[in-house]
């Protein structure tokens, strides 16, 4: 049978990816340029018995998503810069209480109201450091409509597997661009469901590290009575200030991500093998970068592209290797230099690191990147 294909906007692809992943709850608040995610899910979720609620603000949306997830429902919210800022306290709550959820951030220009209809990539550091306190983060940065679909599915998988919030960031360009999408058949993409506890309600502890780095999360209303709090807590979920317990919990919550980078990381490389200069770019910028690589190659310049699809945890190992191998890395992003700090940090001076940035609401074009490459080599 022929596969189902459609011409979809990135935001619509995201919503359909959520449905494919088994999402059963969306809580949100309208904001450009993310609103289509909510619009499509308001239509699609009730068809599969899921729930859609438009909350009174983004804080309430994030709260409803965490509450719903605790009942076992795969839960998602979608927003943009100002909304992500409002969600930050509760993103931290989902980190410390270890509640799976997916947060879509269709990035626009900022700070503040910024440029609601213009693209931006200036929330990438916020995705890691936006909420207070030490924590790990997972953030994915797809660059096409098809990839938005599959990365949204993967975001749910990672959220459920690692019991934490996962953010998917794409810029307005990819969010609003229309491309041909081939819908995967059921079973074609991996869909991970939440691991249920193996022990009974009487002995269950929601943060029992002896059950592994990611202790299973029971659902409210499934026979288990337990406590969830945003306070530092012991393995039974109740608040503690005992130094050794606080320390162990904080470290476990970071280690569960950092010890599994190989599982979480996803990158694409294009002509990097013999590259003398590597363009390091993600999201829509990486599409201009790929065009630039081809043009540069045709002019005899050995250029390559490194494109992180998992932005956080940062692809430190591979970026460091490339820094040793090449003469220069050009980091191009629609902000005034954010991920370049990480690239510089891991390059350790082994190659030139230069940036090509833009924040005027226009996409970064290949010519701009090519010019920069020629400057540095």
């Amino acid at each position, binding site marked *: 049978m022929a596969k189902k294909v459609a011409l979809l906007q990135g935001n619509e692809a995201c919503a359909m990816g959520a449905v494919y992943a088994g999402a059963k709850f969306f809580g949100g608040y309208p904001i450009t340029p993310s609103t289509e995610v909510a619009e499509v899910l308001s239509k699609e979720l009730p068809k599969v018995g899921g*729930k859609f609620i438009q909350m009174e603000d983004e804080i*309430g*949306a994030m709260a409803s998503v965490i*509450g*719903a997830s605790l*009942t076992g*429902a795969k839960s998602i919210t979608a927003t943009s810069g100002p909304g992500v800022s409002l969600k930050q306290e509760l993103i931290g709550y989902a980190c410390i209480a270890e509640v799976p959820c997916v947060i879509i951030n269709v990035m626009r220009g900022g700070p503040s109201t910024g440029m609601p209809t213009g693209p931006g990539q200036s929330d990438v550091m916020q995705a890691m450091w936006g909420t207070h306190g030490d924590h790990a983060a997972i953030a994915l940065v797809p660059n096409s409509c098809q990839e938005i679909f599959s990365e949204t599915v993967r975001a749910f998988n990672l959220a459920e597997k690692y019991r934490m919030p996962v953010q998917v960031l794409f810029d307005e360009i990819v969010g609003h661009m229309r491309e041909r999408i081939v819908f995967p058949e059921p079973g074609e993409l991996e869909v991970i469901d939440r691991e249920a506890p193996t022990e009974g*309600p009487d002995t269950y502890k929601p943060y029992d590290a002896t059950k592994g780095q990611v202790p299973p999360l029971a659902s*409210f209303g499934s026979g288990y009575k337990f406590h969830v709090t945003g306070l530092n807590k012991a393995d039974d979920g109740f608040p503690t200030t005992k130094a050794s317990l606080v320390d162990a919990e904080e470290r476990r919550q970071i280690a569960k991500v950092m010890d599994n980078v190989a599982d979480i990381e996803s990158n694409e490389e294009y002509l990097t093998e013999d590259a003398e200069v590597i363009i390091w770019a993600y999201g829509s910028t990486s599409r201009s970068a790929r065009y630039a690589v081809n043009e540069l190659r045709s002019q005899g310049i050995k250029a390559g592209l490194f494109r992180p699809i998992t932005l956080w945890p940062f692809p430190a190992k591979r970026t460091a290797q490339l820094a040793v191998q090449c003469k220069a890395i050009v980091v191009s992003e629609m902000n005034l230099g954010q991920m370049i700090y990480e690239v510089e940090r891991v390059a350790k001076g082994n190659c030139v690191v230069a940036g090509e940035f833009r924040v005027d609401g226009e996409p970064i074009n290949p010519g701009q990147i090519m010019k920069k490459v020629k400057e540095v080599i």
Partner: protein
Amino acid sequence: MAYDYEKSIRPGKLPHIWCPGCGHGIVMKGLIRAMDTCGLDRKNTAIVSGIGCASRLPGYLDACTLHTAHGRAAAFATGVKMAKPEMTVICCGGDGDGTAIGGNHFIHACRRNIDMTYVLMNNFIYGMTGGQFSPCTPTGAKASTTPYGNPDPIFDISKLAIGSGATFVARTTAAHPREIDRLIVQGIQHKGMAVIEVLDDCPTTYGRRNKFRSVVDMMKHLKANAVPIKAAAKMTAEQLEGKFLTGVLFQDTEKPEYCEMYAEVIKKAQGA
């Protein structure tokens, strides 16, 4: 025979954090009795709170308990209830939590008329942080951030709930412990958003600054100024000055409940 509270309390979680004389403990006992009277299955009961002294309540109770972030209880609870409407959902928290930082979530939960029972402990102050004024601190009263007396007007929580669309609204005080459970029972049994405002006391950060030399003084004040709604009907405006009405202040059994409305959405989406 003494009432057996212990079976509802999580083993090993007492003593609680509350100060001697704090009214929140009286409310917790009332809530326990009410849950018993309703025969709630605690495995299928979610008790959701925000942050504050009052919001510590769920941790002591043996149920599905969710201690969230400051002000967000109603929004978390909305997610729980929407995703699993078969659960009984109870919110609890303080006046600051529910009407200042959480005021927006509170009024919108009322507006939706989602089936939950919100027990709001109004001690007229931010107790946990040491007695700063809340939206319910009486004008003129002393708080740690109103050294010259509070210039702010107050929220009448029950009126706020009624105005926002809650369909069961009741008020009582910590000096009326039996009425606490009676009203919570009615709230739980009511289908829709039920708000039970319990006026209680914070001797540590409010009472001592405001000429209530002892907890007994504060309780006497609550008792002396509580006027049952029926009695109020026969009183003049002058006689009602400075009093607060107690009992069931409002009930509407017609307004549709939110999860039931959404069940209709699902039916339509599925083409039934």
